[in-house]
């Protein structure tokens, strides 16, 4: 069995020297699994607004997300990654949560664009959710309105970095629960 020190050593994030540092069998296995996982992150097509157009562009031949092993899937059952691209309304939020729950673990979420991050331009609207993280845990936020394909590609590479650091033993990925202090958007009294 690996000691905790060995394990930590094995998971130091250093792309160049990672092979040399892995000393345990679980480490090798982890590395193999993580390598295969991050190289086949299938993403769920979930375009909600204009960000969806940029999402399509990112999957297209110019940005070509396919070269990282990311293929769009039309069903949550086959998806590992959910790219929430666009304005999320309360009506859609129910569906969004349902789709997220239908995805098999391990699952990841990219919040794409200002609207998905915090409600964006429509934050003061009565029907728009103030950020996807109000309903599902988000791994990577991509700012922009909408983000360029390069930005989304960068966000996707960050998800790959997250996958790289995962451990098999650690069954559940540390996910950030939706937090809400209830302080609201209003600026406090001066």
């Amino acid at each position, binding site marked *: 069995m690996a000691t905790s020190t060995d394990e930590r050593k094995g998971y130091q994030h250093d792309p160049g020297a990672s092979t040399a540092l892995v000393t345990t069998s679980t480490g090798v296995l982890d590395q193999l699994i993580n390598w295969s996982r991050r190289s086949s992150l299938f993403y769920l097509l979930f375009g909600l607004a204009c960000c969806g157009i940029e999402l399509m562009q990112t999957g297209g031949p110019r940005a070509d997300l396919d070269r990282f092993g990311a293929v769009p899937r039309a069903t949550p059952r086959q998806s590992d990654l959910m790219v929430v691209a666009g304005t999320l309304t*309360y*009506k859609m*939020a*129910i569906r969004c949560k349902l789709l997220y729950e239908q995805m098999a673990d391990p699952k990841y979420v990219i919040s794409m664009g200002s609207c998905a991050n*915090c*409600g964006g331009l429509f*934050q003061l609207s*009565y*029907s728009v*959710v*103030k*950020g996807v993280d*109000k*309903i599902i845990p988000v791994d990577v936020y991509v700012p922009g309105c909408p983000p360029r394909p390069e930005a989304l590609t960068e966000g996707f590479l960050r998800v790959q970095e997250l996958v790289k650091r995962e451990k098999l033993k650690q069954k559940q990925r540390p996910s950030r629960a939706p937090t*809400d*202090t*209830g*302080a*609201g*958007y209003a*600026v*406090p009294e*001066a």
Partner: protein
Amino acid sequence: MPALTAEQIHQRVAAKFGEAISALSPPRKDPYFTIAGPRLVEVARFLREDPELRFDFLQDVTATDHPKEGVIKVVYHFYSYQHRHLAVAKVHLDRAKPEVDSLDGVWKAANWMEREIYDLFGVIFRGHPDMRRVLLPDDWVGHPLRKDYVEAGGYRGISNVRDNPLDQYLSLDRAVKAPAPAPVPSAVKPAEPPKGA
């Protein structure tokens, strides 16, 4: 047949229905007249069937809310592709109990537009085949485009508030600014006596 002007259209409708049709509004881009609520369907059928009017297309149905006057005005835009002319009409409804007959039987196009008005203004269209919300979820509370609408505070447990990340910087600003006014007089006062002395 040539396209009729708004005045000609109004004259023709007013001649037929008399009291139910108001005077034409002052000249503007699209002058409008008001139709008495109870006779709306009759008037609409006339607008559609009359060979000189022949409004074969219900271009738009929308509404406006006027809390001070206590009315909700439903606005109809009729267009004739045959004659290429347009008419705008309004129906005034009591804001406390807004109900009007549906035009779904005259133009099918009215169906979803009336549902939208029901959704956002709470106007009930009598005789509508499917009077449900069309945009918002079925269990939504209230009608958001009314002037006195107050948000219910989230939906199904989803919060509708989000912290402003700039707040912490604002409070820092205040922490810097708040003591500043106090020292200024005290700083000035000690500064003056030495000058005088």
